[in-house]
């Protein structure tokens, strides 16, 4: 199975990247953007998807400061651009 793990800073935990991007945007000509959060994404082929949560807890994320969700990716990325 091709899986995707989406990792985000836990709610309430400082997200310096998100803050810096949000703060910089208006001066750079991008208005009307709020509530920016920057996280990570991990795409991987797993033979046993049942073990994904454990993999997330132990290696892919830092449970102290990050939340994650696991999404199944059907073969190829669902949307697409570029």
């Amino acid at each position, binding site marked *: 199975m091709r899986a995707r793990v989406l990792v985000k*800073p*836990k709610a*309430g935990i*400082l997200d310096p990247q998100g803050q810096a991007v949000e703060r910089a945007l208006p001066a750079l000509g991008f208005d009307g953007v709020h509530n920016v959060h920057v996280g990570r994404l991990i795409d991987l082929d797993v033979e046993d998807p049942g073990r994904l949560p454990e993999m997330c807890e132990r290696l892919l994320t830092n449970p102290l*400061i990050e939340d994650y969700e696991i999404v199944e990716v059907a073969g190829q990325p669902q949307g697409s651009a570029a």
Partner: protein
Amino acid sequence: MSNVADPVPRHRELGLTDAEYELILNGLRREPSPTELAMLSLMWSEHCAYKHSKKLLRRLPTEGPHVLMGPGENAGVVDVGGGFGVAFKVESHNHPSAVEPFQGAATGVGGILRDVFAVGARPIAVLDSLRFGEPAQSSRSRYLLERAVAGIGHYGNSIGVPTVGGEIYFEPSYEQNCLINAMCLGLAPHDRLIRSAAAGPGNVLVLLGALTGRDGIGGASVLASAELGEGDAAKRPSVQIGDPFAEKKLLECCLELLDSELLVSLQDLGAAGLTSSASEMAAKGGVGLDIDVTRVPLREAGMEPFEIMVSESQERMLCVVEPGRVSEVIAVCERWETLATPIGEVTETGRMLVRAGREIAADLPVGILVDDCPLYDLEPAPPAAGLYPPGPVRLDPSLGGGETLLGLLASANIASRRPVFEQYDPIVQSRTVRRPDQADAAVLMLGDGDGDGAVRPALAVSIDGNGRRVACDPRTGAAEAVLECAANLACVGAEPLGLTNCLNFGNPEKPHVAWQLVEAVEGITEACLALGVPVVGGNVSLYNEGPGGPILPTPVIGMVGRLPDARRAAQTGFAAAGDAIALVGEFAPLSAGSELAKLRGHPPEGALPVLDFDAARAAHATVRDGIRSGALTSAHDIAEGGLAVAAAECCIAGRIGAVLRVPADLDVFAEAPGRAFLVSGPEAALEGLPIIGRVGGPALELGDVLKVAVSELAEARERGLVGFV
């Protein structure tokens, strides 16, 4: 766990003893409000009140001709001439780093940087002192090492302050409780130095920097469950995330505010956040403060007054400003994209008044927060037997001299630190004349770094502490750490101006730990008095324990000195074939507490060589003077691994061999740190020094003990930490 039938009183959950709570009730003549209880419990914690160490610390000598600010301010400051002072301090971030090493170490660096710019100094260097369990045996220790180093680099590199030195030891007793100590030095023109005492009733209290969130509320969150309903507490984040970018702007902003003379006083926010910063500022100024928490800019909705008062969100400072200058302050901060928010004012009441709009959340005499926590006497008792178990035999005692030396060089405590220090930027700010591995102390030019050809006065700095030796004999071991720092400074031609220290110990309520602490402080005191070096600041970290008991007693010493001309600073490496090598200092090393003893499976027990401060001091002066006069081209103090390892390090750094005679009856692997040196230079220039050998050839030859190719020595030393970090 507690249940309804048998509730643990709230004060106990917050770490206050019944007797302490009794004192609070008597002082207030009423029950404290939840916010007051949160504030008091933190201000009366070991961390803020130093209740088990304050009496002891009074013994340390703090005065000297160069001292501009001593302990008590955010960082100590000594005069370095030319109208400048150097501010410095070492601090621990042990417990947060054991939980989340990257952020723990990063915010440790962030915190010590703020202490330094809080006194008006621009941070010019960071050093780190780290302790972990055995890396070869413990994946946890490798993980902690790797992440802590990454975190230190992340913060220091990103903020543009060079990390110029440090030290790392690996011992089983640090397995669960690693030590992350960070030291920072800063430079300030005298007239930019500022204190933290709030002054001038009617003046405005302005909070600078990051938004306030629920960071680090940890302990006090029991109040949250009480006030906000059960179950919320667990959701409360408590890991603090460092933002070096925010701190970089805050730093530049604060220095500009000070250069423009817009501030009356300045203070960083650290442990216990606003509570501690504000009450310390008020206490020092003998004033009161009136704070409205609804004015504090928040990162999260719905924060309770007590949460705002104890939040440990990073990258914040507190300052006092005259009312007429607040708009100027805000303008400077806007330029640096840094928030500045008036949150209260200075009063004459001597009380800490915390309001949430119209409601009063806390109204306490400043004194009860800052002065009234009881100080405890320690009950020291020397242990009857050693406290620390022997380790496994890692180096066969039957090995020959050469193999033993290679084993020592490849051991985790002696091997090259390159895999670590290559992750740190040691050169930003263009002051660094000696970076890691070039000399025993880092050397940093004073002035603007533009005086080619002219005399270049400089600072030297070193950080040291060897828990094994302190475990053998806390008094001698701690004094040795002071001596070793001074010896490191001597190796670049510097004389000490002052020192800072971090006392990392176990639970002081245990008599044996108390004894270690008392003895170690005594040893530091003796050494400081003998060398004439004042202690201008420091930090204490207690209750460092694992399931097996206390950590090795680990006083870490950071020492700063001055040298008249950086062009003469010596290096560790032998410089030229044909140079003579001298052994300077009275050197009668013993094997107890040595690295070799450890590798052979001995516990940290036994007698250390007796200290002769006068002799050590004379040796330091000989080396220092020889370097200043240009007679010596290399100098290295003899520390871990004894004469053999010191000689090997000089060869490896100089990429050249040497032939040395071994003085009669000398164990080449035994140790007596801080007392003796290997120096080299042209033979004529070494006149009067006891010459024991000559530089040259492809190998290190030590009498008939060993002969090993320099390339082999280098390979062993480089290999030691590879794969661990």
